[in-house]
């Protein structure tokens, strides 16, 4: 009770130092990263009573990877670099005759009778060994997804004048405007229907 008057001012000179300390801590611990990868849907487990649908042999594109990373595509040993090309040829074949229900008007393939009828019917079946290396598997997955993306890009360019992949990226981006999104949703869906991704993965073999 000796002195009354204005309270002594707190010295704020070290505030900057403290703030700097915290800043440096957060700077060091921050990781600004977004992961990227290949999106896939796994098939749901079918009830055992259900019969598997009957699919024509010609509508299935088989890809087998063995433990050494070699590829057997449609019963032929194939270089992994040719896989995308072959998959595109298969998907884009459009073998159904014009006038039939499955006729594919936008396909630019060779329309061979012994390859897929239409992109909607075409199924890619991927099978791998238990000892296949993961990196090989990812490369194959990447090429197959790439085949679909190439075809979808082609159609998107034809219909909307821009790539499907960029449209989809914008559509999935949370920062895109909602009315732009609605517009994109329609387009993305349409392209996806033209080339639906039908990639089936069998249970891995233990035998070969």
């Amino acid at each position, binding site marked *: 009770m000796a002195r009354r008057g204005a309270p002594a001012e707190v010295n704020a000179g070290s505030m900057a130092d403290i703030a700097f300390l915290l800043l440096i801590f957060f700077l060091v611990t921050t990781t600004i990263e977004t992961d990227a990868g290949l*999106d896939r849907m*796994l098939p749901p487990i079918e009830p055992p009573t259900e019969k598997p649908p009957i699919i024509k042999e010609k509508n299935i594109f088989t890809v087998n990877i063995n433990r050494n990373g070699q590829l057997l595509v449609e019963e032929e040993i194939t270089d992994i670099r040719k896989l995308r090309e072959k998959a595109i040829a298969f998907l884009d074949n459009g073998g159904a005759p014009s006038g039939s229900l499955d006729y594919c008007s936008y396909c630019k393939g060779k329309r061979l009778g012994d390859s897929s009828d239409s992109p909607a019917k075409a199924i890619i079946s991927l099978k791998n060994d238990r000892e296949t290396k993961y990196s090989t598997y990812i490369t194959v997955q990447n090429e197959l997804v790439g085949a679909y993306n190439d075809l979808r890009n082609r159609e998107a360019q034809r219909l909307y004048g821009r790539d499907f992949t960029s449209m989809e990226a914008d559509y999935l981006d949370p920062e895109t405007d909602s009315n732009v999104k609605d517009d994109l949703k329609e387009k993305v869906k349409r392209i996806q229907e033209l080339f639906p991704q039908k990639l089936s993965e069998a249970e891995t073999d233990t035998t070969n």
Partner: protein
Amino acid sequence: MSKFTKKKDSGLPAVNTASLPDIVFMLLFFFMTVTVMKDNTLKVRNDLPNASETKKLEKKDRVIYIYVGAPESQYQSKFGKEARIQLNDKFSSPSDVGGYILEERAKKSQDLQNVLTVALKVDKEANMGLISDIKHELRKVNALKVNYTTYDGDAFNNLQ
């Protein structure tokens, strides 16, 4: 006359640093808000493969991570050199995956539970057998949306 001569300049005036804390605080808050603390330490080697047709994994709150890879050298005496699964902080077997996914799913809010993605961060050298086991477990608990997390790059680099 003295009026004019009084303003004798004695060198440069000191820069006012009073606003420095404000600037620093601004930066601090920026980094505080964008920081995502690393929530688990990796005990497995995690050299991801490359892929070019990737999609970004937006919205971290909807992602469940599973790490696969060979144990780091300090764990090798105990867990061996074969690729193992890491869930949160411990090594696990494929049969634990289902329970882990259900547990993680229960932690998320109701509206997110149906849109979860499982990110598989798998080392290049892992074998597909283990991945198939994981996939089978995921199918059992109906966690069907997976993302094989990769680095951006040419997929053919994986083959070397």
